[in-house]
C-alpha cells in the first residue's frame, strides 16, 4: 500500500511541478475554443430547447480537456521514464501490478479533474448553469478521466519512442475527443455520422457529463454510464494484464 501511495504522490508531484504546462495551458486552450466558437455560433444554434449553444459547449470542452490531459499524464510519464531509463527504479521495488497501475491511473484522474475544474471556472461566466445532477457530473468526470488515464498507461507501455506515442495521441485520442459531440449535438448529424458517434466512448462521457449539468442529453445517462464504465473495466483489465505479464517492461 505504501508503495502505491508513494508512486501516486510522485506522479502528482511530477505534473504539479510543471503545472503551467500541464494544467494552466489546457485551461487557456479551452477558453480560446469557448471564446471563438461562442462568438461564431451563438446566434445560429440552439443545441437543446432552452440551452444556448454557449452554455452547451462548456461541459463538452471541459470533458474534452479532461480526457486529453488524463491521457497525456500517464502516457507521457511512462514514456519519459522508459526512454530515460529511470523506470528501472519502479521495476526493482516490490510494487504489484495493481499498485503500479492504480498510481498512474489515479494521478491521471487528478490531473484531468484539475484541468476540468479550471476549464469550468474560467468558462462558467458564458452561462453555465449549476449542475442539475451534481453526482452524475462527478461520476462521469472521474470515470472519463479514468478511461483515458488507463488508455494512457497502455499507450505509454506500448510505445517505444515519442513518435509512436504522438501517433497514438494524434490519430486516436484527438479524433475520438474531437468527434464526440463536443461542439455539436449528435442529433444534428447525418445518419451515418450519427451511428459512428455511437461507437465512440468519448461521446458517452461527454453526453453523460452534459446530462449532469442540463438534465437533458442525446442519450440516457444510464446508457452512457454503462458504456463508459464498461470501457473502464475492459481497459483496466488489459492494462493490468500488460503490467503483470511484463509486456515491454520486463524482458
Amino acid at each position, binding site marked *: *500500500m*505504501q*508503495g502505491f*501511495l*508513494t*508512486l501516486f*504522490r*510522485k506522479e502528482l*508531484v*511530477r505534473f504539479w*511541478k510543471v503545472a503551467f504546462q500541464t494544467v494552466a495551458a489546457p485551461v487557456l486552450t479551452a477558453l480560446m475554443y469557448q471564446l471563438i466558437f461562442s462568438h461564431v455560433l451563438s446566434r445560429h444554434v440552439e443545441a437543446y430547447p432552452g440551452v444556448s449553444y454557449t452554455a452547451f459547449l462548456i461541459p463538452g470542452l471541459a470533458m474534452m480537456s479532461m480526457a486529453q490531459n488524463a491521457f497525456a499524464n500517464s502516457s507521457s510519464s511512462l514514456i519519459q*521514464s522508459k526512454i*530515460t*531509463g*529511470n523506470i*528501472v*527504479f*519502479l*521495476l*526493482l*521495488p*516490490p*510494487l*504489484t501490478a495493481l499498485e503500479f497501475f492504480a498510481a498512474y491511473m489515479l494521478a491521471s484522474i487528478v490531473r484531468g479533474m484539475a484541468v476540468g475544474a479550471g476549464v469550468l471556472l474560467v468558462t462558467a461566466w458564458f452561462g453555465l448553469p449549476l449542475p442539475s445532477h451534481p453526482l452524475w457530473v462527478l461520476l462521469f468526470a472521474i470515470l472519463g478521466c479514468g478511461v483515458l488515464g488507463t488508455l494512457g498507461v497502455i499507450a505509454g507501455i506500448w510505445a517505444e519512442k515519442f513518435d509512436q506515442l504522438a501517433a497514438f495521441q494524434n490519430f486516436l485520442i484527438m479524433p475520438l475527443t474531437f468527434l464526440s459531440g463536443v461542439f455539436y449535438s449528435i442529433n444534428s448529424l447525418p445518419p451515418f455520422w450519427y451511428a459512428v458517434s455511437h461507437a465512440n466512448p468519448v461521446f458517452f462521457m461527454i453526453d453523460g457529463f452534459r446530462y449532469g449539468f442540463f438534465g437533458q442529453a442525446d442519450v440516457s445517462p444510464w446508457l452512457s454510464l454503462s458504456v463508459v464504465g464498461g470501457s473502464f473495466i475492459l481497459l483496466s483489465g488489459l492494462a493490468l494484464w500488460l503490467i503483470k505479464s*511484463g509486456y515491454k517492461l*520486463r*524482458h
Partner: protein
Amino acid sequence: MGSAIEIKAVSKRYGALQALDDVSITVEPGEFFALLGPNGAGKTTLISAMAGLSRPDSGSIQIMGHDVIRDFRAARMSLGVVPQELVFDPFLSVRETLRFQSGYFGLTRNDDWIDELLSKLGLADKANVNLRALSGGMKRRVMVAQALVHRPPVMVLDEPTAGVDVELRQSLWTFVKELNEAGHTIVLTTHYLEEAEALCNRIAMLKRGKLVALESKDKLLQHGKEREVAFKLNGPLPDTLLPRKVREEDGRIVLKLPDIAQLEQVLAALREAGVAVRELNVIEVDLESVFVNMMHGGQV
C-alpha cells in the same frame, strides 16, 4: 542458513542470441562475489534475471530463499541493484529521489538512514540539489544510495565504476567493503580485473552466456601458478620439451611449468640439444591473464 543467491540452470534467449545458457551459481551470505566476462557475455542479463527485470526461459533464481518470480515481493526486498546505465529522474532532488525510492519499498520515515547514506557517500551537501545538476560520478553515488534505501542483505553492482574517476572508485570500494564487512552479500561485475582481484573472494566467469569458471579467487589464481616462461631460442624446440609448449608469440615460445623450480630441467634439455637461449621472460600470472586465457578458449 540458506544461500544468499541461488541460480539454478537459468537459460535465456533473445531471438537468435543465447544470452544465458544453463547457468547455475550459488552465492553464500557474506560473500564478495565477482561476475566477470567480456561485453555480451550475459552478465547484465543474469543480473536482470535476479532483479526480475527480465524473465528466464527456464531455470529458477532465489534471493535469500525467495523465488524472484513466485515470491517477488520478498525477493526484491532482499535485493539492492545498482544498474549499469546512468539513470535518474530529472524532476527530483537527491533527497526526494531517496525518499520516493524508500516509499516504493514500503518504508516511511527513513530519513535517518537516508542521512547516513548521504554522508557515507559524500552526498550530504548535495541533498537538495536536483539530479540534473550533478556530475556523472555524483549521479552514480545517488544510484548506489537508491539501491540501499531498504537495507537489502544482498547487493548487486553492475559495473559501478565504469567511466568513474579514480577518487570515486576508491571511495566507492571502501564503502562497499564496509557493507560487506557488516554482513551484506555483494555481487559485482566489473571490467577492471584488479578490482575483482583486490575485493572478491569468489569469481564466476561467463562467456557467451555460459559459465566457464566458478571458483574462489585464490584457486583461480592457483591455476595460474603454473608459471609461463617465454624463450627466444636460436634453434628449434627440442622434442622432449614439446609437451610443455603453450603457444608461440612474437617469435617467442611460451612453455608451461607447474613449478618455477623446473626451469632448471628445461634449460638442461636445451643445453643438451645444443639450443642457446637468447632471451627469457617469466610471465607473472594475475587474474587478467587467467581471464584472457579462458576467454580465448584455454582451460584452467
